[in-house]
């Protein structure tokens, strides 16, 4: 909120200059910082007259928020986060919607014919290539996942692994409480762990469990967020929310220029990664200097 106030103050340019600018209704799923960063990236790339709406993390606010947003007669709706994107399925056909920060759009029957967006995904092959650059001898990678949410993600991981002559060890986890037994029973042959952004598995307790296992067995732990590398994972591959927001802005321009609402999704254009050299030392892994040099963040 503080950021918004500052940004708003910095962006004041006089009401008369608003004439002719596209009206954008920005609908946020919640106040998460990553969503706000996506908005920052978005607004840095498109001239618009924007108004901000927030579901406050509760999809039951959708009717009310959308009614309010649509009453301003926006030219485009920019939905940030999965809840916002789902809520915007109800936006009438003649109002284009651009979304971003949604991991698995197809899970929610997105995009519809007036929607297009940027997914919050990281190319699986790129992640595994990075893993091989970090440690070439790896051949078996364990993927803890919940069948309920991440069956498709596991399938993509397996396809990517096959392309690189790696094999995936699926570690299905039904709940946080059962994670320890799943790790104990199924990960004995793993030479690396791939901690994916699964709603059931990605919890502090499971992360701590996998981190301890990684350090105990001296095998790499690959994750999806920079903050987890800072907490001790060996490395993470991810996309910056600002970048995804900026890409969404490009889609808005295309929609406005070509009247092409799309019905497509595009992946983030730029992948970043972080490494933790202290963890690397603990695992006895020498990360090549070229990998360190290109990292977005290096924790020493």
């Amino acid at each position, binding site marked *: 909120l503080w950021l918004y106030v500052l*940004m708003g103050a910095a962006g004041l340019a006089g009401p008369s200059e*608003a004439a002719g600018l596209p009206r954008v209704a920005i609908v946020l799923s919640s106040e*998460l910082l990553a969503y706000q960063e996506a908005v920052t990236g978005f607004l*840095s790339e498109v001239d618009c007259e924007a108004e901000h709406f927030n579901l406050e993390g509760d999809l039951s606010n959708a009717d009310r928020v959308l009614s309010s947003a649509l009453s301003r007669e926006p030219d485009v709706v920019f939905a940030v986060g999965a809840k916002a994107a789902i809520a915007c399925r109800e936006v009438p056909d003649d109002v284009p919607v651009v979304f971003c920060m949604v991991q698995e759009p197809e899970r929610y029957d997105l995009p519809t014919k007036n929607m297009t967006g940027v997914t919050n995904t990281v190319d699986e092959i790129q992640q595994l290539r990075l893993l091989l650059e970090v440690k070439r001898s790896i051949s078996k990678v364990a993927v803890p996942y919940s069948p309920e949410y991440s069956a498709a993600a596991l399938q993509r991981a397996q396809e990517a692994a096959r392309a690189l002559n790696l094999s995936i060890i699926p570690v299905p986890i039904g709940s946080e409480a*059962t994670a320890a037994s799943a790790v104990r029973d199924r990960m004995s042959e793993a030479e690396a762990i791939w901690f994916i952004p699964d709603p059931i598995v*990605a919890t*502090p307790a499971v992360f701590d469990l996998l981190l301890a296992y990684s350090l105990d067995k001296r095998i790499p732990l690959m994750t999806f967020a920079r903050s987890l590398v800072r907490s001790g994972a060996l490395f993470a591959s991810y996309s910056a929310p600002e970048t995804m927001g900026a890409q969404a802005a490009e889609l808005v321009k295309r929609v406005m220029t070509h009247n092409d609402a799309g019905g497509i999704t595009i992946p983030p254009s730029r992948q970043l990664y972080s490494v933790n050299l202290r963890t690397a030392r603990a695992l006895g892994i020498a990360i090549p200097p070229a990998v360190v040099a290109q990292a977005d963040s290096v924790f020493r």
Partner: protein
Amino acid sequence: MSTARPCPRRRRAQRASVLLWAALALLLPNMGVATEKEAFDLVKEECLVEAAARRLQPLAEAPSSATVITGADIQRHGWTTLAEVLRNIRGFYVTYDRNYWYVGVRGFGRPADWNDRILLLIDGHVMNGNIYGDAYMGSELPIDMEAIDRIEIVRGPGSALYGSNALFAVINVVTKTPTAKRGVAVGADKASFGTSEGWFSFTGGGPADTRIAVSATGLRSAGQDLYFREYDAPDLGNGWARGADGETGRSAMFSLIRRDLSVRGFWSSRDKHVPTGAWETTFGHDGTKSTDERGYIELAYRYPGTRLGSYEVKLYHDWYRYGGIWFYEDDPPLESRDIGRSNWSGVELRDIARLGTHSILTLGATLEHDWEVHQEVWDVDPYYLYVRSRLTGLTDWSVYFQEELALVRQWRLTLGLRRDDYETFGAVNNPRVALVGPARDGTQLKLMYGRAFRPPSYYDLYYDDVDATLSNPNLLPETVDTYEAAVEQRLPLHSVAQWSVYRYMVHRLIDQVPVGESAVQSQNVGTVRTTGVEIGIETSPGGGIEASADLALQSARDDETEDRLTNAPEILAYGRFFVPVVGDRLGLSWDTRWVGARYTNSRQKTSGYAVTDIGLVGNILDGHMRLALRARNVFNAAYSHPGGNELLEDLIPQDRRAWSLEFRVGNGL
């Protein structure tokens, strides 16, 4: 909710704001760098969406007392029919007369009423037949429960939106949406009483963004040898009906979806032997049986909408077939046949419009044409015709509106009215008013009034065999006025408590009344009053554990005589839970229900009973294979249900302990 504020209007200014932000991020180490908690919260966002997306209108805001049972609930508890689901839901209870399953709601369940006061929908399509108004709830609707995404159970009147038969509840069975990803699953079940069942399902995508789902099921049961003391005589097998309780069933359904267009179809058929000597037939004759068939095909187009709203058009054709073979005592036994056959088509238009920021208006209209309504009863040899009633070309129509107004402080007012016009008895209007909103943090309050109706069925109006059942063309529709207050309170440990108080006034109740020495006739008999209180709590404390407990106290009485109605228990209690035993690979389910005493037709009082079902459900091969071992009535309780007017028996014995082993495999589970 809306943060209306000026936007950066020039890119330079925008970049300046970004740079300012970046500078601040560097100065303040906790800003601009997502924390570990942020990373997990971001992932969790999608989890919450998955649960919420199943019902875009939150239950708490629905202008009714509603319960949603998900496909996962059905799998965990092993419910195989709608009746098995409903008997575990607050305020519901079932009665089985060894031929049909009847569902009572909130203390009201007239014996052998064929569920004509409950509206049953599959994917929004009305399933009640148009001769008897009946809705199949048990094995007479052998649907593949694996194909169900969720069951929406809405208590109270629904005629303001749905029209006829929605007096006590609307039950909408929502099947799984076809997916582009190909999935196939097969399964089989072997159970006590010589019962076996098999299923097949397929879903996948085709060219031009087409998606299809198909499922089929088959059922066979030998049934039980049953003892009825009313027939305990040497020439009647000493009261034992042997080999006369079997049934076979089958069903198929499909969904074909391409963008905004969908085609759906359903067909089911069931043959059931009748062991009870119903309608004074020869007791225990293994040739006496009924056949029930139901089907429809529906074409729907949903235009997602303009700024003003969206609309939907549905065209459908339905059919219903009933056949009865009844053997009567004679030498040789006299065979009598009974058929009901109908075909009807209809169209429905519905428009949902947003008027400003505070109003959602739903407008709709239906037109339905009965091509044929045929009822016939005859003796085979010597041929003798008792009933032949054939009606053609009857048309009914309706118009309705519902207005949802957003008031202050998140309160919503719902106003609705529907007018249905029938060729048989004229028009009826059904209004609805509901006020829903937060009373304080975490507490939702609902105040509701509604009226609903049940038209006299073609059977009530025109079936006349002169001897046993007399027609009554002067019948008027039965109506119910309902007043209800409900509260939903969120509690710690992911728990929700709900309670409600209600009062139903049923006017011009249609009931079968003895006429003369041996005949019955449907008549508007008077007014019935049902009052009650319901309390329930559900919790999901984590670790995959889910539990609920419910209590319903209710009274259903004749408004003039104050007599308790038959088949109307005054206490219902339920408890169920599911606990993971070995991670997500093995789980234990437990359902217990207590049904209080009920009066039978002869004013006997049945004993209350408690029945418990348990199950062990195992998921292996990464969820691609499921094994389930279940015990229904695990403590082997002996209990009976009240019988209907067509039976000599006052009490119908129910199943004792029964085992089943279910196996399913496939990537479409």
